[in-house]
């Protein structure tokens, strides 16, 4: 797990709900939270948010959904002080230091700035993105994991050689197969299913091994 500081931030923040996804129980981020009435920023963790224009920012934790599903959309002119965020996590792995911060066209710049400052003060790093399915990382890596799983099925190479190639040839800390399996094939199935349903792009169609894992879990 990454080194993470307790936030030292001028704007007090509150958390509503709990989330194993972004902030596990012992996460230092949670210990500095204040009560909602004292807070300038409210984070909703796995809990339906309430609009509150008096707050600098309302941050809603996202999973595979778009922010627009929670805020509503207005013909491309949506946006307020409500932002989405997701601390990137490869399924069962510990959370990474990355926060994907999701904005809409008319999101308030001061809400974005406050959110970035808050997360950075907690030792996290923020990448800002618009409200697209899969945000940045899942949008980019899930098709690659699908391809690697397909290569394994087709006998292009062994798992060991597939992973070793990516580590030695590209400097990745781990190979795609070991990573997707460690994170959980069922997790991969859930993420790619959402992406495939939302985009129709063939690269997101869940890999056979992920389908098998999901079916076995159901049975």
């Amino acid at each position: 797990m990454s080194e993470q500081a307790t936030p030292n931030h001028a704007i007090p923040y509150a958390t509503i709900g709990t989330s194993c996804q972004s902030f596990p129980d012992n996460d230092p981020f949670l210990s500095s939270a204040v009560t909602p009435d004292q807070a300038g920023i409210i984070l909703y963790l796995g809990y339906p948010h309430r609009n509150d224009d008096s707050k600098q920012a309302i941050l809603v934790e996202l999973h595979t959904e778009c922010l627009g599903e929670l805020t509503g959309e207005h013909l491309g002119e949506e946006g307020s002080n409500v932002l989405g965020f997701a601390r990137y996590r490869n399924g069962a792995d510990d959370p990474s230091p990355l926060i994907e911060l999701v904005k809409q066209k008319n999101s308030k710049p001061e809400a974005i700035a406050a959110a970035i400052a808050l997360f950075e003060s907690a030792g996290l790093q923020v990448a800002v993105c618009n409200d697209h399915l899969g945000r940045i990382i899942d949008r980019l890596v899930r098709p690659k994991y699908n391809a690697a799983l397909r290569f394994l099925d087709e006998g292009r190479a062994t798992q060991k050689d597939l992973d070793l190639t990516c580590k030695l040839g590209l400097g990745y800390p781990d190979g795609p197969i070991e990573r997707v399996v460690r994170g959980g094939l069922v997790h991969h199935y859930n993420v790619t299913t959402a992406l495939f349903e939302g985009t129709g792009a063939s690269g997101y169609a869940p890999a056979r091994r992920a389908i098998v894992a999901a079916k076995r879990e159901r049975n």
Partner: protein
Amino acid sequence: MSHSITTIGVCGGGGTMGAGIAIVAARAGFKTISYDRSPDSLASARKQTSQFFDKSVERGKMKPELRDEALARLTITSDISELAACDLVIEAVFEELGVKHALLKQLDEVCPDHTIYASNTSTLSITEIASGSTRPHNVVGMHFCLPAQLMKLVEMSAGILTSPETFKTAWALTEQLGQIPVETRDDPGFILNALLVPFNNDAIRAVEAGVADAGDIDKAIKVGLGYKMGPLELIDLIGLDTQIRLCEAFYGITLDPRASAPPLLRRMVAAGLTGRKSGRGFFNYGSNAMFGA
């Protein structure tokens, strides 16, 4: 029958990849003949090789006498008949089937029957390359990564007609060179490019679709996944024009939509934004400003 390998030829030795492979071979103790049609390129590569070894000595990675021995083992030539002495020839010439076939035809006339032809191709089929030789059983894929003198990985592929003996000998040689071989089937892009080229295209499409700007995309990938380099920074390094060539090679064979060149990539190349080499691609290397800024 297996022949022990004592002399290695490198075709395209005046290029970046060829020069790197020649360094690997000479450093590992093999008599190495570096061939290129351009004497100027060869002379330049020889000078860079000498500088590389000097740096290795300065950094304590190589003893001076070993540098001198390695350089003595490495000869350069623009006369292809000198490759007659080679037990194995690694070609790193231009990635075009016709160019490789023309080279193999010449090698068939020059080299003894036992000579193994190894192709450093990253995109072409080993079987198709081998069809340009009268000895397809002697042809094997040995794809080094750039810079070859530093990167240990070699993707090794057998074509349909490659003999098991050829593959086994080439594999053993790769290990003798101090490299790490991985075995992959003769499929488009082998492992590395088959995963990388569509992934890089997806990153370009994310910029194109307005998912995030280039800096945020690369930051997310580096911080979230622990990659040393973001995909857009990597494309700038590879060259956007090279990325188009890779796309054309793969998409033509696979018809995988992820392998097709994104329109933004073509527009940027048309605008002269080819990456680091032009000073600007997804990032501006003059002022460090983001693409589009």
